[in-house]
């Protein structure tokens, strides 16, 4: 008998979901015990449309080839001492933030998608989730391998996993992903595949990758291009998941809306670190946070994606208006926080040079000169006993209970004040940086009271290498516990800077 003709889609079904069967010896609920408690209703998993058709064999081939190219370029960069041709060693502070803050999230995403692949009862999306789980392991390892070379010559790279688990500013990304992986499988895919991969990836990756390109960091740039084909699979998965859930049952709509509201604000607060990096930490700048926010969020997401989702009964995320209002403030507030607490951070900060302040003033005509320039003028004068000949905020900040960023966000409606919100819950007061974070807390207080807040933990005595010998010994013992060595303080008193000058002093500068 002649074989029947099948379409590619039919063939792919047979390769993937055709492998599934309904169990008869045990109940399906015992195999997938986490599929129902979130309240998502699935009428028919067969309605799932595969966002891409990747078989395992094709995956092996494509990915091996992509990695072969990546590692060839990385090896070349290492062999030729490529780090010496970076625009400036200051550039690497963004990459330090990336490897400490983002690389462990890639890893968490790998395990998170393994959870979804294991526990979503739908064989279609499970396949896509599995490939993403593989991809995220790839991203982790490539980033570690690229960081490994910088680690040999620069500070801030030596202990990224330990730091991710302990250091105060890294609890911002860590708590974000901990929040996602402790949620059920449906919230996880909405949070990560949709809200993060679909709505925020461009805002996170494009600045990093083009920043790398502008500043001579070939490995990061190569990784970025190479990861793009992975990312496009992840993005189509994200959109597909949300549309599928919305189409399956009308009861899903308010649940998904609540998750979109939550994860928009959570992700937006997370990317504020990227804003600080773009506007302050790249020696050669690509575009401002505000420009990138307008392009990727206002034009593409708000005007594009959410227009498209209207027909499913989905409106733009709550508090989106607030983030639009904040766009001229956000990066300045966050860099100022990082700058002020650099004595306890595993990267360096610095006072923007005069021409950089000019750039900031030009990009932020309504805010930079008005509200931020004076801080740096004063910071130059303020002397502390710490290295660096400039201002540090000696003390511990109040952290937002949800996003865990120190409470230093300017109120756009009243720019001389910071936003401060609080909620009383079971006899305790909890503080928030914004209405968005407060709203998230109120949805699930029993979750957010669990937060491991770095500053609270220091007060509780949980973050010392050894018990401090006196008040002056508190910060040193915390830094020891963080394994911060010569990674902190101002760039211009750092070993990175000293070495960079030393390495470049015998080099002829050729202007071409």
């Amino acid at each position: 008998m002649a074989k029947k003709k099948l379409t590619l889609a039919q063939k792919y079904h047979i390769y993937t979901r055709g492998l599934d069967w309904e169990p008869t010896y045990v109940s399906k609920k015992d195999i997938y015990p986490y599929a129902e408690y979130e309240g998502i209703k699935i009428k028919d998993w067969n309605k799932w449309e595969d966002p891409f058709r990747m078989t395992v064999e094709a995956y092996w081939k494509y990915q091996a080839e992509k990695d072969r190219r990546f590692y060839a370029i990385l090896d070349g960069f290492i062999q030729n001492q490529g780090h010496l041709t970076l625009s400036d060693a200051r550039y690497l502070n963004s990459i330090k933030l990336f490897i400490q803050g983002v690389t462990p999230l890639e890893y968490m995403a790998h395990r998170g998608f393994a959870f979804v692949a294991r526990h979503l009862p739908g064989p279609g999306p499970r396949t896509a989730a599995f490939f993403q789980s593989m991809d995220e392991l790839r991203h982790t390892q490539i980033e570690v391998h690229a960081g490994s070379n910088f680690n040999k010559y620069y500070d801030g790279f030596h202990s990224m996993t330990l730091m991710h688990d302990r250091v105060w500013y890294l609890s911002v990304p860590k708590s974000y992903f901990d929040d996602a992986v402790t949620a059920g499988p449906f919230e996880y895919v909405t949070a990560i595949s949709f809200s993060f991969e679909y709505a925020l990836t461009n805002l996170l990756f494009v600045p990093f990758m083009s920043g790398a390109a502008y500043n001579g960091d070939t490995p990061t740039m190569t990784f970025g291009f190479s990861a793009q084909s992975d990312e496009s699979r992840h993005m189509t998965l994200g959109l597909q998941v949300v549309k599928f859930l919305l189409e399956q049952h009308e009861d899903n709509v308010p649940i998904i809306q609540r998750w979109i509201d939550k994860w928009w604000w959570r992700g937006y607060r997370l990317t504020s670190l990227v804003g600080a990096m773009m506007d302050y930490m790249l020696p050669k700048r690509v575009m401002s946070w505000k420009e990138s926010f307008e392009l990727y969020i206002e034009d593409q997401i708000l005007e594009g994606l959410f227009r498209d989702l209207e027909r499913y009964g989905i409106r733009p995320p709550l508090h989106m208006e607030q983030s639009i209002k904040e766009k001229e403030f956000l990066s300045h507030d966050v860099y100022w926080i990082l700058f002020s607490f650099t004595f306890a951070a595993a990267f360096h900060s610095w006072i923007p040079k005069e021409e950089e302040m000019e750039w900031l003033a030009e990009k932020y005509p309504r805010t930079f000169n008005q509200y931020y320039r004076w801080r740096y003028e004063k910071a130059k004068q303020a002397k502390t006993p710490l290295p660096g000949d400039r201002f540090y905020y000696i003390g511990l900040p109040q952290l937002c209970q949800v996003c865990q960023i120190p409470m230093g966000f300017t109120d756009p409606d009243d720019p001389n004040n910071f936003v401060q919100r609080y909620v009383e819950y079971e006899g305790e007061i909890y503080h928030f940086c914004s209405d968005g974070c407060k709203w998230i807390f109120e949805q699930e207080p029993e979750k957010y009271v669990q937060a491991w807040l770095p500053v609270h933990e220091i007060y509780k005595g949980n973050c010392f290498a050894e018990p401090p010998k006196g008040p002056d010994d508190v910060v040193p013992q915390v830094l020891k516990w963080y394994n911060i060595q010569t990674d902190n303080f101002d760039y211009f008193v750092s070993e990175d800077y000293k070495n960079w000058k030393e390495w470049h002093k015998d080099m002829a500068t050729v202007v071409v």
Partner: protein
Amino acid sequence: MSVQYEIKQKVIEPKRLAFDYLLKRYGNRPASRYEEATVDIQQRENFHYRPTWREGVEIFDVNYSELKLTDYYSFLDPRQYYYYTYNATRAKNYEAVDKYFEFCEERGLFEKVNEDWLKVFNRYFIPLRHLEYAGWILLVGVARFGYGTSITQCAEFNACDKYGNAQLITRIAFELPEPDGDIFENAKKTWLEDKIFQPLREYVEKLLTIQDWGEVLIGQNLAIDVFVNPLVHIELDNLAVENGVTTFSFFSKYFYDMYKDNMRWTEKLFEVLLSDPNYGENNRKFIESKLNYYAGQISKAIDEFADVFKMPKKKGDFKKAKENVLNHAREVYGKLGLNIKI
């Protein structure tokens, strides 16, 4: 205009040879890419929230299994696979498969398989795609709940191999003639109804409800794999050859090699678990009690395959085949020093 530096050939002494945590473990030496990609990568502490899907556990928690290690990175993959080397190895392995499909097509080998054997093959071989698929789900669960990147990464790659196996069986089935209608529907029906598969299916469905990742590995890698692979890819392939069918031997070798490759990490892991200075004894008790159960069950389950040996023109000797399979299992368990009665 841009500024370029002319780099003089000078040696810059590295400030550190490796990441701090690798230097602490391995002393002052550069680390391999495998070590960098693996050791101490998983988050350890200060998790912010507890899972909403299960009570009393942390995001990563040694208590997801009864099996424990003092230092989870005392296990390292003897194959040193990280993402790149794993994918590159598999891409290379699969090149031979592609070539073989081309060869079969050129020579019309799939059409030439005699109808008699095709009936046998369709009964015992094609439905295994469902078993491999279950293996994928089980192992991706280990990749989520296992502790330490060295273990979970091996499980992730093993999961990928399982899914690859399920898809390769599918690809083979696409090439075969369909004298009795849709080959996949028939195979699923066989998997769901034919008596030769029912104890096996019952076994695997029950294993899919197990939460302890260590127990899952015992049930899958030390039991299903250790019995089914030699039975299908050695004994039944021999029977095919005796019946004049050599077309599938190549695939059987491929699947068997894949099995052996995954046994390298599996055996190493269990060796490390059994010799742990603090948990070794408890691990042994757990492994022996579970494996006695699972190996016993799987051994009984494959007895149903006796029927398959009676099907072809030249009948096979199931008893002898079973003895060979048992000997293989005894060898695997013996090497680990496990006391298993089968």
